[in-house]
């Protein structure tokens, strides 16, 4: 096989789309399996590796479609474009999901903080009430909280 039959001097032209698909298949199957394992509490630190395979696949698709477009048949060009679209769509979906996930985590931390603050106020109220020789009942809890916060 001559160099003219190779893209970038080392990838056989007729195998270029196949290798691009293999990289993306490895990346997407690996990411799906790792996520499923994460769901049952098993965390394997290989996500970066699969991410790298995905990026390599994207780069091959972009280079193939934009730089070596003339080297490929209409069929290959169509598949390189299909790959670019799939990656763009799922990158966007991942970005949106990641943001939503981060937002939920942040909101939960905020709710936890509010609960802990409420707990601290109620304990402080109890201590303040006890140190003044009073008891806390349903009827006086509001005024006890107010007095404790004033003292604080």
């Amino acid at each position, binding site marked *: 096989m001559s160099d003219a039959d190779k893209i970038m001097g080392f990838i056989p032209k007729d195998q270029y789309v196949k290798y691009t698909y293999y990289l993306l298949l490895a990346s997407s199957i690996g990411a799906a399996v790792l996520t499923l394992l994460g769901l049952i509490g098993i965390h394997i630190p290989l996500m970066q590796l699969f991410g790298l395979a995905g990026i390599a696949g994207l780069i091959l698709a972009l280079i193939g479609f934009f730089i070596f477009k003339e080297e490929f048949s209409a069929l290959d060009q169509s598949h390189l474009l299909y790959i670019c679209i799939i990656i763009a769509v799922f990158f966007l979906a991942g970005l949106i999901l990641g943001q939503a996930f981060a937002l939920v985590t942040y909101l*939960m931390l905020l709710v936890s903080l509010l*609960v802990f603050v409420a*707990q601290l106020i109620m*304990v402080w109220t*109890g201590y303040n009430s006890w140190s003044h020789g009073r*008891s806390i009942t349903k009827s006086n809890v509001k005024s006890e909280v107010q007095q404790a916060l004033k003292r604080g």
Partner: protein
Amino acid sequence: MSDTSGDKILGIVPKEKYVHFTYMFLLVSAAGGVFFSLLGIVGIEPVSATYGLIALGLLSLGLAVVGLTKHKADFSVTDHAHFKYIALLFIVFFVINIVGGAFYAIAYALGYLVTAIIGAAQAVLVWTGYNSWQGGRVVTKGNIRDEVKAALAKR
């Protein structure tokens, strides 16, 4: 106060300081909870210290229960009311934290599930593209459904 064991609860805690200590343990536990929640928001999670706070809270609950049961006669009616208040606070916030924790765990699991579904969809579409390319066909808006079916059937 004389140093006789009669003035001490459980042989070590001075009777007049008993409620004070019980509240102090709970206050440190609750204040620590607020502090660690703030740290959590900026991404710092001191897990082992959190267990220490839980231990302090449990110690406080233990002291309140002992004060209400075994040594009930040693304390005034006001002290009894405060022991009950401490136990009630502990139970209420324990339940709130359990419910909140469960909600968070469900949200976390759902996030993973959606990620896994999106990952699976991506894998199916990549496989569809590869299968279509192997068959010498093009994936278009019009035939993508049939291509997915053909790819899954080939599986």
